[in-house]
Structures are given as C-alpha cells and as structure tokens.
C-alpha cells in the first residue's frame, strides 16, 4: 500500500513540476509578443493603409452580448469611434443629416453578421449604404440595422415580431440571409440555430459529479501545457481524418442534397409567415439571398486561401446545391443576388460570407435597385 502511495506521489510530483516547467518555457518564448491584430481578418489587403483598421479591430474585440428573450442573443450597448450600438442593441446606421424622421419612410434591415457589419465601420455597413443610396436617389428613408451575429432568417423574423409587439410599425422590411445553410450544416438538421447543439447540451440534465468533472476537464484542456503537447504528439502520430467537425461534413451526396432541400423548405415556410405578417401589420417586405465565396464559380488567386471552409468539399457542395434551388424565383419579393461579385477583378470578401466596405456598397446598390423597382418606381406595387 505504501508503495502505491509512493508511486502516486512521484507521479503527481512529475506532472506538477513538468507543468510548471512548460508554463515557464511558454512564458519565456512568448514574452513581449504582441499580435498586430486581434481578429486576423484585419491583416487582409482590404485594410492595408487604413488607419482606422486597428481601432475597429480593438472595438470589435470589446463587444459583448447577452441572452435575449425569444431570439437567443444580442449585442450589449457600446460606443466607440467606428462602432456604436445603442441601448436597444441596434447598430448605428448612416442617416441623412437633414432627414425629417416624421416624414420619412422606415426600412428595417434584418440579417446575420454580414448585415450587422463585421469588419466594417458604422457608416459602411450594408444598411448604411442602403440609406446613402436611397438618399442619393432622393427618397426619404430612415434605415435601421437589425442585423445580429449568426442570426438565421427565422430568428430575424422573431426579432421582427418582437419589434411589432413593442409597437414598431415599419413601412418596409428587408431580409438578407446567408447563415441558414451553414447552421444547418453544423448540426446536420435544417432550421437550426448557430451552435444549436451547444444549447441542447446545456439543457441536458447533468449530475453534480458530471458538472464537476466537466469543469475540471475544461480547466485542463484550456490551460494545461502537458495536455496541449500530448494532444499535439497524438495528432502527429495519428492524424485526424478531417479537420472539420460539423455534422454535415460526414454526409454523403444524397444526404447533402436532402439537407439543401430541407434548408430551402424551412426557409420558405418562414417566408410564408412573413408574408402573412406583412398583410396584418401593413408593411412591404423583400428578401435577398446573398453572395458567398462558397458559391462563386471562379476564385481569384487572393481568395484561394481566404477561408479554410473553401477546403471543405461537403460544405461547398451544400452551398451550391442550396444556391441552385434558389436560382429561380421561389416566392414573390425573393431575389437571389449571389452573383453580385461574379465579374470581380479584386476580392470583396473577408471570409466566406463577410464582405468589405466596398463589397457592402455594391451589395447595397443592387438591393436598392431591386427594392426601387419593386416598390418605389412608377408602376411598382407600392409607390
């Protein structure tokens, strides 16, 4: 017995001293090291010589969010030089300085982080460019950015319902999708939220012992140098078959095809709900299917390594299948603008779904042109 206790003691000493030793080595090696940008996308050529990039990167890193009833999550109030979120969690949108808010029509824009404007300044988000473009065309509009990180179409719809419940009565509502396909790929089921499996796991009942052991294992996996190095060696000796862990990655062609059909079906069942809401609450709506690097027919040299997801053939396939199903008009007021950058000679992408300020301007121009034809011009359904 004494021998076992002795061996255990030796083992603990070896682990403890090794861990301390490796932590010291790590500190010495990385002492004084400072990454130029917190979000590595700011190192892309879009931000070269842009003096605001560093500040925007910092402001973006300072954002936080919290739980929001019914819709899941939302941003907290924040005020920076290039990034401002009001106390209702709405990002600032450019507005004409002389706009008479009482007389102006209202346009609410819903969508994921690409609409919210990751990597771009307040005045250069898609809703801001929509506002600028409408102003240029002499339309009086107050445009609001209801984009939120990772929001699906249906989540945006719930966000709209909550606004209507609170007494908001927009004249026009624009939806811009883009994340539904990825979220469905992540969980292997259409119509799911971003990280829906994490929410499900949190909801599962765990015993106190399970909670304690999960906590201890989290501390070890996140902080232990021994764990990190042993994992590295294990992966070298036995490389994982894939670096992608999304459920959809393991799907075969038939399953991907079925998933894309399910994504589209789920989407348009929600669009039908939006259509009914628009009739009851008296607003007009328009829905756009966005460009994505994953559905581009031609990649520029600078885009080949822009996003690791381009190497995930299953994801690319799912995006293309879904996009094919949405090529033709599926419903009134639905527009596929995935080909906005098809003639590009330089990239407008920051990653597979987010676009630069210049890219946002092109997207907004296209959206306004369609919106104008649909609702604002002579002979349109609503003038």
């Amino acid at each position, binding site marked *: 017995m004494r021998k076992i206790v*002795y061996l255990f003691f030796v083992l603990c000493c*070896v682990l403890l001293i090794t861990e301390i030793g490796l932590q010291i080595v790590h500190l010495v*090696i990385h002492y004084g090291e400072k990454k130029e940008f917190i979000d590595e996308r700011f190192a892309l050529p879009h931000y070269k010589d842009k003096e605001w990039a560093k500040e925007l990167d910092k402001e973006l890193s300072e954002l936080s969010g919290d739980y929001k009833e019914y819709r899941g999550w939302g941003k907290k109030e924040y005020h920076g030089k290039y990034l401002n979120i009001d106390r209702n969690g709405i990002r600032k949108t450019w507005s004409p300085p002389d706009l008479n808010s009482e007389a102006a029509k209202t346009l609410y824009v819903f969508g994921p982080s690409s609409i919210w404007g990751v990597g771009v300044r307040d005045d250069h988000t898609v809703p801001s460019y929509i506002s600028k473009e409408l102003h240029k065309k002499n339309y009086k509009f107050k445009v609001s950015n209801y984009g939120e990180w990772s929001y699906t179409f249906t989540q945006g719809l719930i966000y709209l319902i909550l606004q209507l419940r609170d007494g908001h009565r927009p004249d026009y509502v624009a939806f811009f999708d883009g*994340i539904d396909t990825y979220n469905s790929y992540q969980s292997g089921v259409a119509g799911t939220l971003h990280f829906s499996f994490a929410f499900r796991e949190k909801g599962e009942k765990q015993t106190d012992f399970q909670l304690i052991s999960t906590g201890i294992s989290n501390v070890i996996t996140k902080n232990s140098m021994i764990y990190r*190095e042993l994992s590295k060696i294990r992966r070298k000796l036995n490389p994982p078959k894939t670096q992608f862990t999304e459920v959809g990655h393991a799907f075969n062609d038939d399953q991907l095809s079925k998933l894309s059909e399910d994504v589209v079906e789920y989407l348009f069942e929600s669009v039908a709900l939006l259509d009914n809401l628009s009739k009851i609450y008296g607003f007009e709506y328009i829905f756009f299917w966005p460009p994505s690097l994953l559905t581009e027919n031609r990649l520029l040299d600078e885009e080949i390594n822009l996003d690791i997801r381009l190497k995930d053939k299953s994801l690319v396939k799912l995006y293309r299948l879904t996009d094919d199903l949405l090529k033709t008009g599926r419903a009134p007021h639905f527009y596929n603008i995935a080909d906005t950058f098809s003639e590009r000679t330089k990239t407008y992408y920051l990653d597979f779904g987010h676009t630069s300020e210049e890219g946002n301007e092109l997207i907004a121009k296209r959206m306004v042109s369609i919106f104008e034809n649909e609702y604002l011009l002579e002979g349109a359904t609503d003038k």
Partner: protein
Amino acid sequence: MISDFIERIRNEKWPITVFFVFFLSLLVSKLFLTENYMLSPFIYSNF
C-alpha cells in the same frame, strides 16, 4: 510521510529519470513540433 517520500525520491534515481524523459520529450514537442491542425472553423464562439 511526505518528508519520507521526498527523502526516498532523493535516494532513488528513477523518479528523476522519469521526470526528465517526460519533461524533455514535451519540451521537444513544444519547441520543434509544429502543426497546421485547426479546429473546425466556427464563425463566432460567443454572442
């Protein structure tokens, strides 16, 4: 008891050998083993 164990470790060579082999192998891994392995590329992990 702990002081007995420490005394025993001092007198025996194998615990020190185990420690050095373990520590040095992980040190080599840390300093020279690079990898391109990336976790699944989630868009954002926080709200």
